[in-house]
């Protein structure tokens, strides 16, 4: 089948899989970014939670396909099974960068904020988080690229995404779905990366302007 024929027959499927992939990404990223920052702040503020850090480091080294495979006996296949690798791989980079971002805030700034009578919550929202923003965004960028990749992989347990096309291509040794699926998911990852780099630069310029 020529590429043109393939496209005219499967065009609708390609469009719907792309939309599905993007939607899944947006939901997973929003949840991971929020949870990552909240958990990062919690670990930074509450010293007892630091015991979690070695667990975080170990989970970080576990490959996504292993997380995916290990979750199946408990959560089954499909969306629920995909949750564990998506959350783990999405949250961890944000969490780690939130902690190191908050740690990098200059002590003078914190002292000044406390000196002018800011409460701990004000200190967090008006001083610490804004100055840690570039580092947090860098973590979000890693998380976003990771998520596009993990979503592609979840096709293996039945989550419809651009990965579905790639697996079809591998199973049938057909380069049409292979190239379309791989190309579009790669394009999505590059696009997401560029958007995040843009946001990071913007944040850097804002915090960089502070004395």
């Amino acid at each position: 089948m020529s590429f043109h024929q393939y496209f005219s027959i499967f065009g609708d499927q390609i469009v719907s899989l792309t939309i599905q992939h993007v939607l899944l990404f947006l939901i997973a990223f929003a949840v991971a970014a929020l949870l990552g920052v909240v958990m990062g702040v919690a670990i930074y503020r509450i010293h007892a939670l630091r015991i979690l850090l070695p667990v975080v480091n170990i989970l970080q080294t576990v490959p996504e396909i292993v997380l995916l495979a290990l979750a199946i006996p408990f959560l089954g296949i499909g969306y629920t099974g995909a949750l564990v690798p998506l959350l783990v791989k999405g949250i961890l980079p944000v969490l780690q960068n939130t902690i190191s971002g908050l740690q990098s805030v200059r002590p003078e700034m914190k002292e000044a904020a406390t000196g002018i009578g800011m409460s701990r919550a004000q200190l967090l929202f008006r001083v610490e988080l804004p100055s840690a923003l570039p580092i947090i965004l860098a973590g979000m960028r890693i998380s976003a690229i990771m998520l596009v990749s993990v979503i592609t992989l979840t096709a293996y347990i039945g989550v419809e995404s651009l990965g579905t096309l790639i697996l079809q291509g591998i199973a049938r040794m057909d380069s049409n779905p292979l190239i379309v699926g791989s190309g579009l998911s790669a394009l999505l990852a590059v696009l997401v990366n560029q958007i995040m780099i843009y946001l990071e630069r913007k944040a850097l310029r804002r915090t960089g302007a502070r004395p």
Partner: protein
Amino acid sequence: MDYIVANFDRILGITQRHLEICGLSLLFAIAIGIPLGIIATRSRLLQPLILGSIALIYTVPTLAMFGLMIPFFGLGMVPAVIAVTLYSLLPVVQNTYTGIINVPPAAREAATGLGMSSTQILLRVELPLSLVVLSGGIRLAVVNAVGIGTLASLIGAGGLGDLIFRGISTVSPSVVLAGSIPVILMALTADFGLKLLEKAMARRIGLAGAEVAH
């Protein structure tokens, strides 16, 4: 557990295959990556090109990368090693570059003052002083490669992915575990071992660095 005990020899063979895929890829990545990183520090023109294109490769989803190998390189060991090598390049190149760029200018000036040529400066000052950063990059590459290597199974190169994917499709947790446990162990051992090595080197280079600075 029974599965693992009964098939221990097979699992060992598959693990060996996995190590071959990752080991070969890492060798290539180091052999190509370090010179690319050095070139990036020497040429203002090539620097954005090298770092940019390698970062671009790294963003490609893993499944897409292995999928794209098939139309160009077919199935088996060769495309699998190419794919894992491509992913391992970024940490090696990036950290070679960062390591050399961050060598204190005083050390470089002192070396020039001693009459060293630029090759001598590279081999005897810049590379030794950036060894810690560089090995941090290699550690990341190793941990990544062990994980990404599991996907090699999808394009017929074997490795521990064989067990993981078979375990998923036959819904047999013991087969999944037989593939997953060695992968996790390898990743953790590599991470831990190379971290220790980095610390030991940092201690040595810390002294050497102080000598140069004096």
